[in-house]
């Protein structure tokens, strides 16, 4: 199983002829991901790493029956790209693009919501179901197939923790970054719901950071989950009012502190590791128990 993407995922790359799009298409293909089409307006007929390019997502879907999309277009065109994918019938959209205006992100959110589409991101590293499919910009070699799901607001921190797990011989069912922006398509709960239902996942690692109240809301949900969750929260030392890289990583007033999130998670029985290494060790211990 795994969640959201697997060996049946057939993806379109939107913005395939750009530098990022082309570079990561090659990487995804070499991992074995089924990239069946690319889209760049005006470039129909081209091929990028053997993948046929179409003018519109609609054309791409008609020709290839693609069911997912990865978006690499520049920020100014990203919302349009998401809308296009949704209206072409794509059911899983992974938006890598960062720097999208937040009012555009609000529209993206409601567009996918209205159409029962899963949007991962924007401003995210993507998603990988090890040995099955990889849609995004992650370093696939550090992951290993297994029974731990990882959902994270951060990219490199996810890699670090997955790497630690892999080193301990603990594989992953699906690993994904939900994105560092304030408005994202899928939040922790959306993903936790899927992991809870996934037969291949026995434990979930939740990697949060300061800003917003998603981790607190996730804790509410975790209370009723049957599977154990292990947490990590970055930003204990972040000062209020300053954005820590991610648009969403900001403490506003008394909202969004690491303390509040760790407390909420602890209260529903989630052990929160103090360091990425400790997270992996907790996972190991919990899995054994």
């Amino acid at each position, binding site marked *: 199983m795994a969640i959201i993407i697997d060996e049946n995922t057939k993806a379109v790359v939107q913005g395939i002829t750009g530098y990022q799009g082309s570079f990561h298409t090659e*990487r995804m293909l070499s991992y074995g991901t089924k990239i069946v089409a690319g889209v760049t307006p005006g470039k129909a007929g081209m091929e990028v790493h053997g993948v046929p390019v179409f003018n519109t997502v609609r054309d791409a879907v008609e020709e290839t029956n693609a069911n997912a999309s990865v978006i690499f277009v520049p*920020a*100014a065109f990203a919302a349009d790209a998401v809308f296009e994918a949704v209206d072409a019938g794509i059911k899983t959209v992974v938006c890598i693009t960062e*720097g*999208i*205006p*937040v*009012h*555009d992100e*609000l*529209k993206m*959110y*409601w567009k996918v919501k*209205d159409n029962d589409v899963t949007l991962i991101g924007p401003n995210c*590293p993507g998603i990988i179901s090890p040995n099955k499919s990889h849609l995004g*910009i*992650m*370093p696939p*070699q*550090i992951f290993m197939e297994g029974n731990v799901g990882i959902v*994270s*607001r*951060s*990219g*490199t*921190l*996810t*890699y*670090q923790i997955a*790497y630690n797990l892999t080193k301990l011989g603990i594989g992953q069912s699906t690993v994904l970054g939900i994105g*560092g922006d*304030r*408005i994202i398509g899928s939040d922790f709960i959306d993903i936790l719901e899927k992991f809870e239902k996934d037969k291949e996942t026995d434990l979930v690692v939740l*990697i949060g*950071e*300061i800003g*917003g*109240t998603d981790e607190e*809301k996730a804790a509410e949900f975790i209370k009723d989950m049957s599977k154990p969750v292990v947490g*990590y929260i*970055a*930003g*204990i*030392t*972040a*000062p209020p009012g*300053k*954005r*820590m*890289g*991610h*648009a*969403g*990583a900001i403490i506003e*007033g008394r909202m969004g502190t*690491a303390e509040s999130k760790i407390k909420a998670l602890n209260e529903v029985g989630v052990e929160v590791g*103090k*360091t*990425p*290494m400790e997270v992996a060790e907790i996972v190991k211990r919990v899995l054994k128990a």
Partner: protein
Amino acid sequence: MKLHEYQAKQIFAQNGIKIPKGKLAKSVEEVETIVKEFGKAVLKSQVLVGGRGKAGGIKLVNSVDEAVEKAKELFGKEIKGHLVEKIYVEEQLDIDREMYVGFTLDRANKGIAAIVSSVGGMNIEEIAAKHPDKIARKTINPKWGLWDYQVRELLYESNMPKEYFKEVFGIIKKLYNVMIKYEAELTEINPLIVTKDGEVIAADARLNVDDNALYRHKDLAELKDYTEVDQLERIAEQKGLNYVKLDGNIGVIANGAGMSMATMDLIYLENGKPANFLDIGGGASAELVKEAMSIILQDKNVKVIFINIFGGITRCDQVAEGLIKALSEMEVGIPIVLRLAGTNEEEGRNMIKEFLKQTKEEIALVETMEEGAKKAVELGCKNGDNN
């Protein structure tokens, strides 16, 4: 990007919201001229920080002499770390009542939060705590925008007195238009005042716009007040680096926002204090590593630098190459703790080991980020006090 009060007010006025008569002054002389015209006035320091009033940044003046005296006090004064370089001089108003209208991004509900209160003048958290029956909040769905029934609900639920209904109704709709038109993250009138003559006027104005949307609002982009941004942060921004200055002594360079925060946190766990947040992002080029180093070295508190890289797409050998290049071109003089993990970590570490044979810079190669933090704190203590 935060706009100054005087800038926000200009935009409000252009969008049909009444504002007091006011003029911007950049010198005591200009204040004097304006107050001569206005008679009585309010001098308002234009600093991008909340609570100016309580911090002494706003002065009522009833004569030109008093204005000159207070202007001299204000110019150059530091308010919560912000230097006063501009004063907005406004007419004095006879205030009968203070109210509140604001819109802000609603992360939790994926919309625009509309907040209206029939009392104002204090911050919104205080209003909510002290007058829960006089505040109303509603999420506006961006699909449909703000409709009249929602405005009515806000007015009724905030117990807005009937006599101000019509005026405040119009202001709520106009302020929402400002929120959408300028792609704001927050816009607020606090206080929205009723004068003794019954006029409803925006006595203060906040407007924070979305940096990511500035390419669609060239006019707003031009308003950016770079004097308000920490100089190092500004330089970092121009170089494409995310840098936030903190008050510790351990410089941090990492790739990824979460990784950078985690690195800071690890230092804190080892009882050290990070000097900064610095995320060099995904594709750390040699040039970027060098820029990051040079920014951190400008912070004279920094006694040690912890570089923490997890190679994903970024290859560790490339990071090593960049670092070596940087160290060949500049003198660092303080110890560096380096953690390289992930893609091509062996190659990277070997390059550094080779480099160490020919340099006098001190580079401690560590295996894990946990170990790196410990080492950095250790070196930081040795190199200076670490409080």
